[in-house]
């Protein structure tokens, strides 16, 4: 068991090293290492320290957060298709981003902030719809409400796209497809500080999550405060995902597939699953971002495209082994 953890941590560190070493501007590995400590050519130092390091760290943190959100939501709604963006968030974020452009809000934070606001509106709507009575948050209704609210917001977004003349709307859609091109120490810092609280809530709920994945009634009989747990987890995961959207757009697939991949190899105990999913999700996104930067350099691919291209084959292999 211990050796698995060591392997995962070593893999995560190796992936971070690769993420920092490769880039559109070729820098020899020894120079990258020296630049990390502020030695060498000033241009190299600033590329490594101000661009690559925050970008790799942000990719890791976002990927890990999405995987943890996916793992916990899959347990809350007891549906393997649950994904951080399934519950209406992507529609809300998209609507927010497109509205920011259509209303000509032009500042460097305009699109991220309004995508975040749009995602929060979606979270609030889904939450309100799923509270069927004042006290019960119905997991099935939560899932349906997520799909419905997401579809509603996506339609509104399409309507804005259809009637708005702004030529920049294409850029908003590109941003929305996910990318870490806007990473800076500032966005990394904001996201890291923000992510600590929801991540801590989710990790602290690892034991009750095990009970919850047995079903709500068994969990209740075994002493879990099911209603409070569901709300806390839904809100933590959604608020964390909304923040991930603000710094990196919509990066699909990580939150859906990483938890399943980890379950296949490591089992269903959440105290193991959640941290392992964090490390695996973070590593996957760092790799995907490196591929996105390098595959068609100097042109950069949206990282969401790559997460699916890298992750689907890996996942297919895992499923085959699991059944064999």
């Amino acid at each position, binding site marked *: 068991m211990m050796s698995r953890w060591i392997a995962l941590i070593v893999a995560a560190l190796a992936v971070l090293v690769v993420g920092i070493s490769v880039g559109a501007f070729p820098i020899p590995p020894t120079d990258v290492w020296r630049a990390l400590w502020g030695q060498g050519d000033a241009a190299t130092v600033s*590329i490594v320290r*101000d661009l690559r390091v925050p970008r790799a760290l942000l990719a890791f943190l976002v990927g890990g957060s999405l995987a943890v959100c996916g793992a916990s939501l899959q347990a809350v709604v007891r549906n393997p298709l649950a994904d951080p963006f399934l519950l209406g968030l992507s529609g809300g974020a998209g609507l927010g981003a497109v509205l920011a452009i259509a209303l000509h809000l032009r500042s*460097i934070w305009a699109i991220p902030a309004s995508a975040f606001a749009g995602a929060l509106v979606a979270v609030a709507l889904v939450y309100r719809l799923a509270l069927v009575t004042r006290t019960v948050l119905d997991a099935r209704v939560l899932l349906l409400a997520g799909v419905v609210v997401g579809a509603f917001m996506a339609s509104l977004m399409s309507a804005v796209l259809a009637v708005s003349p702004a030529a920049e709307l294409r850029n908003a859609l590109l941003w929305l497809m996910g990318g870490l091109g806007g990473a800076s120490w500032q966005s990394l810092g904001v996201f890291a500080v923000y992510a600590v609280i929801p991540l801590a809530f989710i990790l602290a709920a690892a034991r009750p999550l095990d009970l919850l994945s047995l079903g709500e009634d068994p969990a209740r009989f075994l002493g879990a405060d099911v209603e409070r747990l569901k709300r806390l987890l839904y809100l933590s995961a959604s608020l964390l995902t909304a923040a991930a959207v603000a710094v990196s757009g919509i990066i699909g697939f990580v939150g859906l597939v990483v938890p399943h991949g980890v379950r296949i190899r490591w089992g269903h105990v959440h105290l193991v699953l959640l941290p392992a999913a964090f490390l695996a999700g973070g590593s996957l996104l760092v790799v995907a971002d490196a591929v996105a930067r390098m595959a068609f350099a100097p042109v950069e691919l949206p990282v969401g495209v790559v997460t699916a291209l890298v992750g689907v084959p890996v996942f297919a292999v895992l499923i085959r082994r699991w059944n064999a």
Partner: protein
Amino acid sequence: VFERTLDSLNRIQRGARPRVATIVWDNPPIVIGSGSFLEDLITLAGGENVFADIAQPSSTVSIETIAGRNPDMLLLLGNDTAAAFLLSRPEWRVVRAARGHRFAALKGTEFSRPSFRAIEAVRQLESILRATPVP
């Protein structure tokens, strides 16, 4: 008249051509590639597009790529204050031209669509590029 003026502009060629990156969007950074209207304007004005190897009118790149190409001048679509604010951000200061405040905002519609006012656009670009120090 248009052709003649264009010809006269063509004749004012100078020795060193400033290398230019044209940034149309900041996040994700989108630049002008080859075969675009803006690249034609830049070439006519005596500049050289550092992203001429990208076979698309516009494309997403990383700030690192822009820094690596090390343009002499950054042209930004939009207004002055937005451009100044953008380039004061730490991640953009990696680009040497941004550090050295060598940027210009392209404000008017003469830069966004081909028309007779293209000549006006070329004139403006030419005066920007003439003031650009070429190493």
